[in-house]
C-alpha cells in the first residue's frame, strides 16, 4: 500500500482511479493525561501526552482510510490530506482523506 500526498508518483503509472477514500477518529482527552497536561501547562512547552494521543488517533484514521482503499481493490492512496477539528468540548476529530488508485510500475 502506497500512501503519498503528491499526485504523480515517480516510477509509477496510475491505471485506475477509485475516487475519494477517508478515515476519521474522534478522541476525547484522557482524564489522567488531562491532569498531567494541566500541571505541565503551568510551565508551558510541549504536552507530550497529547502529542502521542493525537498521533495514535491519526494512525487509526489512516488505517481506516487504508482499509477502505483495500476494500475497493486499490494499491495506493495519493494526494492524502490531514485535517483536525474540534467537534465537541474536550474532543478532537482527526480526519484523513485521499484518492484511491491502482498503481502500476513503469516498464
Amino acid at each position, binding site marked *: 500500500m502506497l500512501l503519498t500526498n503528491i499526485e504523480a*508518483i515517480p516510477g509509477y503509472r496510475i491505471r485506475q482511479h477509485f475516487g475519494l477514500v477517508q478515515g476519521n477518529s474522534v478522541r476525547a482527552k484522557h482524564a489522567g493525561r488531562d491532569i498531567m497536561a494541566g500541571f505541565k501547562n503551568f510551565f508551558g512547552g510541549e504536552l507530550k501526552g497529547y502529542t502521542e494521543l493525537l498521533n495514535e488517533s491519526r494512525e487509526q484514521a489512516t488505517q481506516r482510510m487504508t482499509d477502505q482503499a483495500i476494500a475497493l481493490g486499490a494499491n495506493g492512496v495519493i494526494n492524502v*490530506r490531514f485535517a483536525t477539528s474540534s467537534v465537541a468540548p474536550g474532543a478532537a476529530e482527526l480526519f484523513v482523506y485521499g484518492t484511491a488508485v491502482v498503481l502500476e510500475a513503469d516498464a
Partner: protein
Amino acid sequence: MIEIAIALLLLLVSAVASSVIERRHFVRIEQEEAQLSQVLIFNEKQPPPHASLVKQSLVSGSVVLGASYFKTFVTAIQGIFGGRLGHYESSIEGARREALIRLRRAAHAQGANMVINVRLETSSISKQGNKQTVGAVEILAYGTALHVPK
C-alpha cells in the same frame, strides 16, 4: 493579601520557568536542524527526476503546545489593549520548527533525503467556553519522503 502574594509568586515562577524552557528548546532546535541538514524539505509538488519513494513515504511530525500560566495571564491583560502577542509568536515558531524536525527525522529514519509537498496544519484543541482548562494548539507537518541519488 496572602492570596495575592501566592498568585504573584506563582506567576513569577511560571514566567521564569517558561522562558528557561523556551530558551533551552531553541538551543536544541538549532542543533537538531544542523544535524538534519542532509534532509531537504520543500513545499512544491513536483518530484525531481530520478527520485524514488521510500517504503512508507507519507511522513509526519507533530507537536502539541501548551501555553504557560504566565502567558495566559499576560494574554488576558493584553487582550484589553490589543496588539501583538510576541511571546506567543516565539513559542508557536518553536513548535513549528520542532514539528519539521520530527518530520525530517521520520524521513531520515527511512533513508530518505528529501521531503516534498510539505504541509503545515495548525489547530486549536482546547476546550471551548471553559477558561479553566488546558489551552493548546497542535502543529502537524506532513509530506512525501523521497530518496534522490546524489
